[in-house]
């Protein structure tokens, strides 16, 4: 469908049931879960339960040691509400990983059906993965894609199977546990996530999708996504996340590691829609070889506190990155998002286009981190950041950080912060459109450059989420 048609799908009436759809808790009882808090015994128990190979067993324990000696970050939004002693790091659903949807237990199937996951698969995806709490319960990949040598599986299968060595060579190599406390935590207790390998010279023309559904209260989620795209290959990977609402804090500290080979192209699209008790401290990073392209499309909704700054390391000459993202911070939310790029080679280029919306006292911060190495001559950087505040209580900040170590570089930076135009609302109302709809229309219009980058069903979902957020009177 064309971009034009997508826009026609801005909902007339946001569905009241829609927020409920995400907030409804599943009734599934876990088969196994560790006790809350974090000790060497708990980490061992996770290893035992998962049947980790020895190197991973050791990796977890080392990461735990790093975690214990690393203080929490001294910048960014406050994390006081997050008590690690209360977080359950591993909740295994009472289900095996299935390859046939029919075999997934009813309760879990119900949850995903409500979210439209199998439907999405029927309507044009090359493969689908579904994770429930800490483990993946379903994975399938279309045979024509598998026949090209494309591997799309859950991380456990990859770790223990024929790609175990490849996993070992790449796992937490670009997101090392030493980097910060939550990466260390991830290294210790990670579970679930997806592994994708696209061999050299393969163009995957239809997207792969993973959906993460976190159901347990007071739990931490630490899925690991590892994607390796070979020379000259291309892939579009879509990640969707949601969680029901509980009154206790939940923590999400996933890791996404992306390897983009020479001349390869990877698009990584995410719509994260967390419940408003979630601390979303997610880490994402890509390394891009010569003439490779990484494209990030990111929508951040929900969560209590969010810290998310996908980084692209352009290490090969002529590598490119493109980031398009939107953040919506409503009442009680502090969303700290942005993008980072390291220009480590000649003639690399990056474009960051970030938008944020804040409403009802919500706080939205954009952090742009640009590093240009001394040898990275001839590179081009363009950063634009556009914030829309829907009322005077809300807050929007931009924090650009640039570390440029060579002269021959072309850098553009533009930031705009504005209020929603009362004149525009009046104009739309003068055409019969109600005030709420007029506001939603303007905000959806503001978000349009992002939604047009998303696959249709995600664009519709995003428009729905915006309309839902707009309806809230706080």
């Amino acid at each position: 469908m064309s971009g034009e048609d997508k826009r026609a799908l801005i909902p007339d009436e946001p569905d009241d049931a829609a927020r409920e759809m995400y907030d409804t808790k599943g009734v599934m009882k876990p088969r196994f879960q560790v006790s809350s808090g974090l000790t060497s015994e708990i980490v061992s128990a996770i290893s035992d339960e998962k049947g980790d190979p020895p190197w991973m067993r050791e990796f977890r324990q080392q990461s735990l040691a790093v975690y214990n000696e690393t203080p929490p970050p001294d910048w960014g939004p406050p994390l006081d509400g997050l008590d690690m002693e209360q977080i359950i790091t591993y909740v295994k659903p009472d289900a095996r990983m299935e390859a046939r949807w029919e075999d997934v237990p009813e309760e879990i199937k119900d949850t995903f059906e409500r979210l439209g996951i199998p439907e999405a698969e029927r309507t044009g995806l090359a493969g689908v993965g579904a994770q429930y709490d800490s483990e993946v319960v379903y994975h399938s990949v279309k045979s024509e894609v598998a026949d090209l040598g494309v591997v799309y599986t859950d991380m456990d299968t990859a770790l223990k199977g024929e790609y175990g060595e490849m996993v070992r060579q790449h796992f937490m190599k670009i997101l090392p546990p030493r980097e910060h406390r939550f990466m260390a935590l991830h290294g210790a207790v990670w579970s679930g996530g997806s592994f994708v390998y696209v061999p050299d010279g393969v163009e995957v023309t239809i997207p792969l999708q993973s959906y993460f559904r976190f159901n347990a209260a007071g739990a931490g989620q630490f899925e690991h996504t590892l994607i390796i795209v070979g020379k000259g290959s291309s892939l579009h990977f879509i990640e969707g996340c949601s969680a029901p609402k509980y009154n206790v804090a939940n923590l999400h500290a996933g890791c996404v590691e992306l390897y983009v080979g020479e001349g390869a192209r990877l698009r990584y699209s995410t719509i994260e829609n967390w419940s408003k008790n979630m601390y979303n401290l997610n880490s994402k990073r890509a390394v891009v070889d010569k003439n490779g392209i990484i494209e990030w499309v990111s929508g951040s909704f929900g969560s209590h506190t969010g810290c998310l700054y996908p980084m692209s390391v352009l290490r090969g000459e002529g590598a490119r990155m493109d980031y398009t993202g939107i953040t919506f911070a409503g009442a009680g939310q502090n969303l700290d998002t942005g993008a980072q790029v390291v220009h480590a080679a000649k003639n690399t280029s990056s474009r960051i286009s970030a938008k944020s919306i804040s409403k009802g006292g919500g706080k939205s911060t954009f952090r742009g981190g640009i590093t240009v190495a001394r040898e990275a001559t001839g590179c081009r950087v363009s950063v634009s950041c556009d914030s829309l505040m829907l009322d005077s209580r809300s807050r929007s900040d931009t924090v650009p950080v640039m570390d440029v170590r060579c002269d021959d570089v072309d850098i553009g930076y533009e930031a705009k912060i504005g209020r929603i135009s009362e004149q525009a609302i009046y104009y739309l109302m003068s055409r019969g459109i109600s005030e709420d709809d007029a506001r939603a229309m303007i905000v959806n219009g503001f978000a349009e450059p992002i939604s047009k980058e998303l696959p249709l069903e995600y664009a519709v979902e995003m428009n729905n989420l915006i309309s839902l957020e707009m309806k809230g009177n706080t």
Partner: protein
Amino acid sequence: MTKAPLLQIKNLTVAVGEKLILRDLELTINAGETHVLMGQNGTGKSTLASAIMGSPAFDIISGEILFEGENITEESPDKRARRGIFLSFQNPEEVPGVTLENFLRTAKGAVTGEKPRLMQFKKDLRVEMERLGVAETYAARELNVGFSGGEKKKAEILQLLTLNPKLAILDEADSGLDVDAVKTVSEGVSRFRNEGNALLIITHNTRLVEGIAVDRVHVLENKKLALSGGAELMRRITDSGFAGLQTNPDAPRGAPKGDTQ
């Protein structure tokens, strides 16, 4: 033919902040009539248009606005639009990310209570766009974003014809247009006009209303309609300006013209 009052403005006093713009203004427009509102710059013509539309930027100090006999003085603009009031803006707002077509279809659905079917709507819209000389590609353009002054005015007339209101107020729909564009806009306005609806046209010159039968002409001065008359008043003003006018505060202000057409 008996004419029913469509719009009745009684003793309307309007201010913006501390500043009084209109005082005790009276105006009645019947179904089937075309009124022209003239006056020097800054006399409050746009304020009157905004007050009728319900702009939140102005305060109604006293008086009433009735539409089809119902008091709408306190109503929000969207409700007024759904009753059949339309304002063609002098400087239409730009709304990024919202396409002209999607906006119009949403608006049409809002005023009629039923969202038009996509394919039929597209077809009808294309026909009207062609008549107005608006390139087809504009349907997918963001509303008024990057439109030239003339394109914005044409887009307003396109909205008028799509929404087909009962009362259309055109606030300088011809300003800044070249001769051909004024003709196109004027023809569009003529297509809209029928026995059941009415027009209030704010303009500085006669070109826009050539080919449109004008029933009443009003001159806004000193915060009220200082002078009202027939179509000939308009010619007098365009020939000799406002300075030569004998404004008479006791002149019938916007009184219904009677049955003659």
